[in-house]
C-alpha cells in the first residue's frame, strides 16, 4: 500500500522532473571574456547587484551618470541586494544552470571572490583583456579577484586597515597618535596597559569568535592560511602562532576586549567604551555616527608583528570588487567599469566627500579631494593617508576554502583563550580544514 501510494504520488512529480532534466543536460558554451578590440555597443541596459545605498549603490549610480555623458543610450538599473543574498542567488542560479538570470555586473566580497570563480567559472567573465589597467590598482587588492593569472574583478571598495584612536582619551595618559605610528604590537601592548590603567578603557575591541583581527595581523606580515601548493598551512604556520600569542596577550592584559556581537562591537566605540579600533577603513562610517566625538579621532597605521619575516604596518580587512557576468552584456559592462571605476578621477572625486568611498585605483588618490582635512578626524587628511597605506598592503592568499580556514582559526583562538595550547588547537584546525577540502 505504501509503495503503491508513493508511486501514484510520484507520477505527477515525474512528469515535472522530465521537463526539468532538459535544463540540466545542456552544457554551457565556452564563455570568452570581452577583448580590448571587442565592439562595445552604444546602447543597452545594464543591471547591477550591490548593497548599501549610502555606499556601493550610490557609487554605481554616479558611475552610470558619468558613463552616460559619453554613452547616453546606455541605461543602468541598480538593484539593492545585500551580499548574503547575492551569494545565495549566485549559488542557486549556478546550480540550476540559470546563469543568464544574473545581472550584468555584480559586487562580490573580496574574501569570497576566488571561491565563486573557482566553483562557477562559467558565470564570470575574464576581464584580463578588457582594457582595464589592472596595474593601476594595488597588487594585493587585484589579487583577490585574480585566478590562474586571469583578472575577474575590478577592485572597488577599499579594505585597507587603519588604527583609529581617541585623541582625548590618549591625552589623559600623555600619549599622542604619533606615538602609535610605525610601532610594534609590543609597543601597543605597553601603551595599551597604560591607557587601561589610567582611563579604565581598553584600547581595542573585537567581536568574539571572529577571525577578522587575527587575519589582519597575519596579512600584515604577508602570511596566509594557504601555501603556494594551495594546501592548508595552519598547524605549522609560525606567523600564525605569533599572531595568536599576541592576541592572547592583548586579551589577558585587558588591552583588547571581546564582545559577543557586531552591534556590541560598534557600540563599544560609539559609546566611548574603548579608546580606539583597528579595522578596514570602512569602519570609519560607523565611527562617525557618534556625532559627540567629532574632532576627537585620528588615524594611523597598524602595529606590526615582532620576530616575523616580512612584518609591516599595513594590512587589510574585507573590501569588494565588481564582477561581470559571462552571460550578460559583457562588453558593455566591462567598458562601463573601465571608464568609471578604473578610469574616472571625476567619479572618485564625487563619491568620496559624500559617501567616504575610497578609491583603490591609484590615479584617483592623487586628486586634491583626497588631501582635504577632515574635521571629524581632528583635521587630518585621512583619505590621502589611507591611499598611502593601501599601496603598502602585503598580498594574502584566499582561494576556495578561505572561509573554512578562517572559521577553523577563529575556533582555535577561542580554545586557546580558554587554556588549550596553541599547537594543539592549530593541529585540530588544520585537521578540520583538510577534512573540508577532502
Amino acid at each position: 500500500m505504501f509503495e503503491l501510494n508513493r508511486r501514484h504520488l510520484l507520477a505527477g512529480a515525474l512528469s515535472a522532473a522530465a521537463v526539468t532534466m532538459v535544463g540540466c543536460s545542456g552544457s554551457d558554451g565556452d564563455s570568452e571574456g570581452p577583448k580590448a578590440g571587442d565592439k562595445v555597443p552604444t546602447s543597452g541596459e545594464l543591471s547591477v547587484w550591490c548593497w548599501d545605498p549610502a555606499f556601493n549603490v550610490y557609487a554605481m549610480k554616479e558611475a552610470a551618470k558619468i558613463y552616460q555623458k559619453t554613452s547616453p543610450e546606455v541605461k543602468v538599473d541598480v538593484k539593492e541586494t545585500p551580499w548574503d543574498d547575492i551569494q545565495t542567488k549566485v549559488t542557486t542560479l549556478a546550480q540550476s544552470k540559470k546563469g543568464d538570470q544574473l545581472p550584468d555586473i555584480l559586487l562580490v566580497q573580496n574574501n569570497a571572490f576566488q571561491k565563486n570563480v573557482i566553483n562557477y567559472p562559467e558565470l564570470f567573465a575574464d576581464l584580463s583583456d578588457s582594457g582595464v589597467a589592472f596595474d593601476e590598482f594595488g597588487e594585493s587588492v587585484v589579487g583577490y579577484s585574480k585566478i590562474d593569472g586571469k583578472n575577474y574583478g575590478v577592485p572597488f571598495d577599499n579594505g585597507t586597515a587603519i588604527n583609529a584612536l581617541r585623541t582625548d582619551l590618549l591625552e589623559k595618559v600623555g600619549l599622542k597618535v604619533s606615538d602609535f605610528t610605525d610601532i610594534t604590537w609590543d609597543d601597543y601592548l605597553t601603551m595599551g596597559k597604560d591607557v587601561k590603567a589610567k582611563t579604565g578603557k581598553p584600547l581595542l575591541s573585537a567581536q568574539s569568535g571572529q577571525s577578522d583581527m587575527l587575519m589582519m595581523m597575519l596579512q600584515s606580515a604577508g602570511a596566509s592560511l594557504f601555501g603556494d601548493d594551495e594546501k592548508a598551512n595552519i598547524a605549522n604556520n609560525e606567523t600564525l602562532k605569533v599572531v595568536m600569542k599576541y592576541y592572547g596577550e592583548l586579551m589577558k592584559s585587558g588591552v583588547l576586549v571581546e564582545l559577543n556581537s557586531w552591534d556590541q562591537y560598534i557600540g563599544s566605540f560609539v559609546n566611548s567604551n574603548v579608546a580606539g579600533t583597528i579595522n578596514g577603513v570602512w569602519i570609519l562610517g560607523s565611527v562617525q555616527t557618534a556625532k559627540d566625538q567629532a574632532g576627537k579621532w585620528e588615524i594611523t597605521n597598524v602595529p606590526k608583528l615582532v620576530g616575523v619575516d616580512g612584518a609591516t604596518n599595513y594590512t587589510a580587512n574585507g573590501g569588494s570588487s565588481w564582477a561581470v557576468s559571462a552571460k550578460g552584456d559583457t562588453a558593455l559592462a566591462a567598458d562601463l567599469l573601465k571608464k568609471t571605476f578604473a578610469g574616472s578621477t571625476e567619479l572618485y572625486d564625487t563619491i568620496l566627500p559624500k559617501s567616504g568611498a575610497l578609491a583603490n585605483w591609484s590615479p584617483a588618490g592623487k586628486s586634491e579631494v583626497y588631501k582635504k582635512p577632515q574635521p571629524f578626524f581632528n583635521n587630518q587628511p585621512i583619505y590621502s593617508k589611507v591611499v598611502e597605506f593601501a599601496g603598502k598592503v602585503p598580498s594574502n592568499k584566499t582561494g576556495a576554502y578561505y572561509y573554512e580556514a578562517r572559521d577553523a582559526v577563529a575556533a582555535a583562538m577561542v580554545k586557546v583563550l580558554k587554556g588549550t595550547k596553541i599547537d594543539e588547537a592549530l593541529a585540530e584546525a588544520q585537521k578540520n580544514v583538510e577534512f573540508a577540502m577532502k
Partner: protein
Amino acid sequence: MTAPPTSEVEAPDRAQGKVRFRSEQRRNLTGWVFLLPAAILICLMNFYPMVQALIMSLKTGRGTRFRWADPLWENYTRLFDDDIFRTTLFNTFFYLIVQVPIMLGLALLLATLLNNPNLRFRGLWRTMIFLPCAVSLVSYSLVFRTMFATDGLVNDTLIGLHLSNAPIDWLGNTWTARIVIVLGLLWRWTGYNMVFFLAGLQNIESSTLEAARVDGANAWRTFWHVTVPQLKPMILLCAIMSTNGTLQLFDESWNLTQGGPANSTMTMSHYLYQLSFNRNPNFGYASALSYAILIMVAVLAFIQLKVGDKRD
C-alpha cells in the same frame, strides 16, 4: 446486528448492505478527493525536490561538476568522520531534550490557566504571551545579546540579588551559551504552542470538566485525568512539530551566537546552510546531511505517533 439467515429477510438485507457499501465507498472516494489538492501540491513542492536532493546526496563534486560518489554512500559515511557535524548533532539533541519538554509543559500550564473563564484580563495575558513569536528576529536577537552581555541586564540582576559574585560571560562559554539558546527558544515558542493548546481546549466539552468537579476531583486531577487525555491529539501534534522544528533549528544558532564559541552552539541546520552557501559549496554532502536530519526526525516522530496516536 445479525439477521437470522432466513430466505425471507436475506434479500432486502443484502440489498441494503449493498447500498450502505456503495455509500461507504463513495464517502471514501470523497475523502480522497478532499485530499487531492494538498497531495498534488506536496508532491510537486516537496517530494519532487526531495527526490532530487536524495539523488544529489549520492553525488560528489565541486561547483556544478558532479559525478556519482564511489561508493554511492560516501557522503553518508563522511558524516561519521566530521567533527563539526558531531558537535552540531550533540548541540541539537541537547536543545531537543532540554527545551521541548519544558516548553510543552509551560505552554500546557499557561493554556489551562488562560482557559479558565473566571480569569480576569484573559485577552491581555494571552496576547502578551503570544507576542514573542511575532517579534522580528532582528530585534529579538539584538535584545537577547544585549541582555546577556557581560555588563548586561541579566548579570546586573544576578549580582544585585547576590546570586552571583562576578559577571558571567554568558555567550562566551560553551554551556552558558547553550543555556541562552534554550532560554531564547523557550521565550519565542512557548506562547506559540500555547495557542494550539488553547485551540484544542476549546474543543473539549466543558460538561466533562463539570462532571469531574461535581465528582469532587481537585484541579490537578481534573487536569491530568480529563483535560490531558482529551488534548492528547494536540499535544502529540505539538510534540512532533517541536521535535521537527528543533532538529531543523537555524535561527537561534545563526542570530544569537553565530554558532560560537568555537561551534559549540551550532545546530545541524546552521552547518547545512554553511556548507551550501557560506563555505566552498558541497551540495552532495549537504544533501546527505539533510537526509540524516530527515531520518532522525522521522524516527522520533514515528515513536511519538506509536506512543501517542492510539485510537481509543
